[in-house]
């Protein structure tokens, strides 16, 4: 499922663009063409070798849970969701990404649980007007 976008039409390597891809239901990282380092989120230049030769790579959305919690005391905007599960998953290429975990009984969560990235296409009505991704069982 990995695919590369051609240089002539390359969108900028920005966090804003990352969330535009989320709205399109795509999980995208920037790959350095000099040293091969993958950046999630993307960066304007590689923090490993400083190269600006980057390309967008679409990531496989399956991953394994490396750690998790269940949040009972939440910030105001998430209080309606509490208690909610949150974790960090490791994708097949070794990149890690954090997020909320939905559609699973909290007692069933454990390190190693297989999860898949899913997408909320509708952006937030207020700042920063991004769409969200989350994790759920495949």
């Amino acid at each position: 499922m990995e695919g590369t976008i051609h240089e002539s039409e390359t969108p900028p390597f920005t966090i804003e663009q990352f969330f535009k891809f989320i709205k399109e239901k795509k999980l995208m990282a920037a790959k350095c063409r000099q040293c091969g380092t993958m950046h999630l989120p993307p960066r304007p230049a590689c923090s490993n070798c400083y190269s600006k030769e980057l390309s967008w790579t679409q990531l496989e959305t399956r991953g394994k849970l490396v750690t998790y919690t269940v949040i009972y005391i939440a910030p105001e905007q998430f209080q309606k969701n509490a208690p909610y599960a949150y974790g960090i998953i490791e994708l097949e290429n070794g990149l890690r990404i954090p997020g909320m975990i939905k559609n699973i009984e909290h007692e069933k969560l454990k390190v190693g649980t297989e999860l898949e990235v899913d997408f909320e296409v509708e952006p937030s009505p207020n700042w920063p007007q991004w769409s969200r991704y989350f994790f759920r069982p495949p």
Partner: protein
Amino acid sequence: MVKGKPLVAVVSAGLSKFGKLEDYVGRELFAQAASEAFERCPNLNPKKDIKALFVGMMSESFEHQSHSAPMLSDWAGLLPAPAIRTEIACASSAAALRTGIFSILSGIYDIVLVGGFEKMTKRTTAETTEILGMAADHPFEQWNGITFPGLFALMATAHMHKYGTTEQQLGLIAVKNHHNGSLNPKAHIQKEVSLETVMASRMVAKPLKLYDCSLISDGASCAVLTKPELAKQYTECPVYIIGSGHGSDTLGLYQRESLTSIKATRNAVKEAYSMANLKSTDIDVAEVHDCFTIAELIAYEDLGFCQPGEGGKFIEKSIPTLEGDLPVNTSGGLKSKGHPVGATGIAQLYEIYLQLTSQAEKRQVEGCKTGLTQNLGGSGASCLVHIFRRG
């Protein structure tokens, strides 16, 4: 720089009461801390002698007040001494301390005041959770609903999975720190708690419960720094800072090398031990950043007090208790003394200053000569370690 030589001397220190101090705003708490430091040091003429102020404060959101540094110079009675605020989340005042050390080592100033404060308790818990949460990565952590208890809970889950650390071991840290805090008249909560109470407390972010979390407090701290060669003009009993280390790492926890160890702490302590020409076994007493019990447990390991993965056994063997071989958080720590975030780093210094000058009363560690402070920012993107020696 000669290893093991004093960088600067601490000739006085002050601390406001910590707690829910409804009658005072932040600047008044800082003035209280400054008054204590000045009263402790009769040979000091603050207006004449103190040339600059470096002060830590995390968030302008608590009191809707930014630009606080000159305000504090004014309220401490130090104007026209210039003042700068430092900010690296909960490590903001350790950053002020290090900046003060730089300013003296540079030769620009002979004497400076360093300090910190935060006025947190007028906000609701939800508002405070939101404000503190701003120190986490916005697009990936805050935006997805993480909280600070949540970030440390992620580390706790990982530590339990990798090493078999238990909730009960974390609970023992809370019991220890509440015992120490019960002996500290400036602590926010001066009350012992039982392990049963800790274990039965309500869940905040699994596996961390209410008693695994530090307190939301008001408070202020400060210290007077000078060149080592001037110290004896001001006090018979100076405390020398002989090591200062600082580490930075990614803001996002998910991007770190490890979820069970804080690299910024390891880098900071390596620098500080090297500067002081000491090793972990030379430390007699330590104040570490127990914003959550798991943070103290990981600090035991990262500071070299025990091996990685052995933090649970270290507390089970009572080594870091007041009666143990290496007392940790004799003040009660952030857990019981309280955690007005911008004040914390220099509040840790204050306890070590009391210990090394034999003024810690019921909490006194007999014969201690060398102390250490570890102040963490956020989930570990910042850490400062300082090492102190009795003069």
